[in-house]
């Protein structure tokens, strides 16, 4: 078989490329973040600075709070919508599908400027306005995750069984459908959460302080500290996502089904 003869050269080339493109910068940044005072030796001084820096906890808390709210609102809005679309509302699917890619089309900067013009005063005065826009930005990903998941279950049969046994619609969604599409829900929730935690564009253009905007400001005082934050959040995200991928077998299978 000719195909097999290419296997190791291809793997060697791609591993080398990946090493220089991704591992080297990441490793470089990680080493840098452990530099001691005045760039000498190795120490944890940058990470210590981080913990004691003004605004570290408040901004981190704000980010976590907004991300949790965005995740919850996202599911509350999208789970019933997607269930209905797959069950009865097929004729609206192209429209919903289109609305859900729009956030990829409309540059986030433009959306932020639009938000400044369009949002009523009372919303602009509270940081909670960000929650709504985080949900919008996550829509393309949520739609995919939930839709893929819903298409792998026999939705109609489940609903008919549940309804004919006397369950209400609310009960059917919560007790029957949600458990069946757990993997899609986890995926949607995690993506929304991750996007919200890292969102910088809208937040900074609407002049709110969350963890990412605080980082940029803090970098002006202490670039080493900012690098430490960056390495920390990046490695944290990789560990978290990898753990989720490894521990939810369902999700792995689902990726393969989709492919």
């Amino acid at each position, binding site marked *: 078989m000719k195909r097999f003869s290419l296997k190791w050269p291809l793997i060697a080339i791609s591993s080398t490329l990946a090493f220089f493109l991704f591992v080297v910068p990441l490793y470089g940044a990680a*080493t840098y973040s452990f530099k001691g005072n005045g*760039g000498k030796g190795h120490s944890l001084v940058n990470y210590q600075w981080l913990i004691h820096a003004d605004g570290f906890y408040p901004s981190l808390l704000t980010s976590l709070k907004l991300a949790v709210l965005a995740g919850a609102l996202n599911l509350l809005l999208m789970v019933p919508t997607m269930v209905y679309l797959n069950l009865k509302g097929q004729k609206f699917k192209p429209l919903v599908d289109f609305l859900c890619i729009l956030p990829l089309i409309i540059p986030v900067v433009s959306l932020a400027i639009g938000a400044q013009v*369009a949002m009523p005063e009372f919303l602009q005065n509270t940081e909670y306005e960000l929650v709504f826009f985080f949900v919008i930005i996550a829509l393309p990903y949520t739609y995919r995750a939930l839709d893929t998941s819903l298409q792998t279950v026999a939705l109609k049969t489940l609903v008919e069984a549940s309804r004919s046994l006397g369950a209400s619609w609310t009960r059917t969604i919560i007790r029957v459908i949600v458990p069946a599409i757990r993997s899609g829900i986890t995926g949607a929730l995690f993506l929304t959460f991750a996007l919200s935690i890292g969102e910088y564009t809208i937040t900074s253009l609407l002049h709110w302080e969350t963890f990412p905007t605080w980082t940029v400001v803090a970098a002006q005082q202490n670039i080493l500290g900012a690098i430490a934050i960056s390495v920390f959040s990046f490695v944290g995200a990789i560990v978290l996502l990898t753990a989720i991928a490894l521990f939810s077998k369902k999700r792995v299978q689902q990726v393969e089904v989709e492919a």
Partner: protein
Amino acid sequence: MEVVKAHSRVRSSGRGTGVLPLLPFFIFTGFFLIWPVIAVTLRSLHGNKNEWTLANYRPILKAGPYLHAFEVSLKLSIITAVIGSILGAFFAYVIVKYAHGKFGAVIDSISAVFANSGGVPLAFMFVAAFGTEGVVTTVLKNLGWDIYAGHFTIFSFTGVVLVYSFFQIPLMVLVFKPAIAGLRNEWEEASTNLGASQLTYWRRVAIPILTPSFIGAFFLLFAGGFSAYATARALTVGTVPLVPIIIGTLVDGNVISDQANLGDALAVGMIIVATVAMTGYIWAQKRAAKWRAS
């Protein structure tokens, strides 16, 4: 990531096709997505005294800093989309072919993190690696290659290209992987049975099938690079004139009084460019879906 796909796999069930259960969704997207876009478009068409005018668009259309910013932004997004789509497609092929099971899942999630890392952390990580004092810079210098000998700095156009590639390539892997995985073994077997060589199979079967997906992914990368804000903002602090960065500066206050709505016009200009790119993406996805329907 691939958003336009499989509109109607499940066919209709019953007649109850009322719009009522979808109202929350339509109201939400209408108010937080459509309305801001309409509002910014309307304001870009108004002058200081609230009169209708096209004056806000004039600075963009004549030679000057704003037209130049569009040129730089376009150049940046085209270059990084080319680099990202070619290298990403190569990685995607190797991953689909040789990385299975848990290892494949780990690579998936790592790509997802890298692809979505087009943010603040990325900028600072590259400063640490490739800055004047950066770790990689130092190592290369000790090996005899001073990357700062020429015009290169991490805060320059080339620097931004380098950093953007870091998220464009994994994004391509995520988007293009399903297309490669969709190449069926039967097609290769069939062409081999008919006497085709490996090369003929690629030239006559695989590449024609993959082309629409590739073009679609290219447009998606282009749009992403064109709109990206956070990384360039944190990295360059305005040394590279990109449209989103200029909009940011205008919003932050340095507005010349008679150009109050210039930022709106720039924002609408970005929407127009992005719409053209995404139309290409949607068109290509429809062509690609032909091979996936089964």
